[in-house]
């Protein structure tokens, strides 16, 4: 009994630690005064200012555009690469897997500056400039390994006869790939795509080094705002993002718990 109470107290304490700063942000996003020291009445003006802030709206646009495009392209590349890697012999596969792990274990600041050097190196010979394209290329690069690492286990589980059976039944290779293999590995593909999307959405360090002037994602915009000093617009932004994430997670949780209970009912 005492132990239970102690456990509850401990969990409560940690959740207080996790949520106190966020709650403060949310409460003060409605504060009429710019100072965080005292409460000066309820207002929505920071939200209005946020929605009129061109810099933040552009950053939001770039964040979403890069996240969607990079996760789609990385998923496409990753699935192709995973199928290729799966068919290699053992030694080759080991080399390829180590290569795939390289960007995963590499510190992201090193990934960021190494890509920056590469892009600037390229720009000597072509008219490539640091900006949207380099940002996108960088995001694809750090996303591809995660897609591959989520798809490979599914390929391992796959019955290798399935593909051959499809060929025997007269399916052309690409058709068999699309109609037989792809549906089987789809859960891994979706996991990889979602992982890539969230990683891209949250990335700061790599983006910070690989983008040029005029193109920044939300993280970069927040970083420069936070460095310049406190602005209640960030509180409003945090509140909105918190609500969006909360709703998304609740939705995902609701769906999975429904699936779980459906499974339990079947058994």
């Amino acid at each position, binding site marked *: 009994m005492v132990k239970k109470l102690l456990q509850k107290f401990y*969990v409560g304490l940690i*959740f207080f630690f996790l949520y106190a700063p966020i709650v403060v942000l949310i409460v003060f996003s409605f504060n009429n005064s710019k100072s965080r020291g005292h409460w000066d009445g309820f207002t929505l003006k920071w939200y209005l200012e946020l929605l009129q802030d061109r810099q933040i709206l552009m950053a939001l646009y770039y964040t979403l555009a890069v996240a969607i495009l990079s996760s789609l392209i990385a998923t496409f590349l990753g699935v192709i690469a995973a199928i*290729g890697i799966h068919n290699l012999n053992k030694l080759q596969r080991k080399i390829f897997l180590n290569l795939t792990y390289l960007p995963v274990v590499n510190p992201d*600041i090193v990934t960021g500056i190494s890509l920056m050097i590469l892009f600037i190196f390229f720009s000597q010979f072509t008219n490539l400039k640091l900006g949207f394209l380099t940002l996108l290329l960088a995001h694809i690069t750090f996303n591809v390994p995660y897609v591959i690492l989520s798809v490979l286990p599914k390929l391992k589980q796959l019955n290798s006869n399935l593909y051959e059976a499809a060929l025997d039944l007269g399916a052309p290779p690409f058709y068999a790939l699309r109609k037989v293999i792809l549906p089987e590995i789809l859960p891994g593909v979706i996991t990889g795509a979602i992982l890539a999307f969230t990683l891209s959405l949250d990335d*700061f360090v790599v983006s910070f080094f690989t983008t040029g002037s005029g193109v920044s994602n939300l993280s970069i915009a927040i970083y420069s705002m936070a460095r310049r000093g406190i602005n209640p617009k960030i509180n409003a932004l945090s509140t909105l993002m918190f609500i969006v994430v909360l709703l998304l997670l609740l939705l995902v949780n609701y769906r999975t718990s429904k699936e779980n209970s459906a499974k339990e009912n079947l058994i």
Partner: protein
Amino acid sequence: MKRNWLAYSYLGWMIVFTVVPLFLILYYSLTIQTGTGLRFTLEQYQRLYNPVYFKVLGLSIELALISTLICLLIGYPLAMILASKNLSKKNTLILLFVLPMWMNFLLRTYAWMTLLERNGLINTFIASLSLPKLHLMYNNTAVILGMVYNFLPFMVLPIYSVLTKIEPHIIEAAEDLGADNWIVFRRVLFPLSLPGVFSGITMVFLPAVTTFVISRLLGGGQFTLLGNLIEQQFLYVGDWNFGSAISIILMLLVLLGMSFTSRYEQEQKGGGLW
């Protein structure tokens, strides 16, 4: 059918965007720009052999180690409690626990700035008790706090996922054989959870030792870790050669850290997030 060309097209991508960039860093770290062109030299690494940079390196490692230790001490009991709860409540708790992690990581660091700053909420509260204001930001403690806050889930989740997979029968067997709670924990539960612990240590230590954002925002300008040093060299000083040399050192440090813990890690990295 041979589908090797699929793998090789990926190889091409990886060479251009991962291997070549790393070689470029290595190349820069080994060269120096002189009036007559490039010269190969170990000068950049010799420059690092300087008490100033030893201090930066030592501080980076020290702060990362302290944060990792605090995360472990706070996180392990939490993982145990989360793993022991009944299922329906457990899902909600886990959800609540990962929720902050899904918010932008800069926003979370910013949230602490609002609490700790000179006119922040904590100081306002202290002042209202007519006590002198405290310097809470721009010091080591603030940076450690920021690291623990940001990286705690990376410690808890791997330990949690290992703990939930431990067969309850094993613990029952130990109890039947006369072990009390403490012995069960020390001799059975903890050793079995070591893969999760090591994976948690890696996942907290590595981002902590390479971060430059937390130290920049909560540590202030006068305060430097390895990551800040690299950022400075590339963006403000413009000394790519020296910046590259520090990056190589940072990479080696991380690889060293990985080699200590990787043999304990499971195949499935970071399980439990999905």
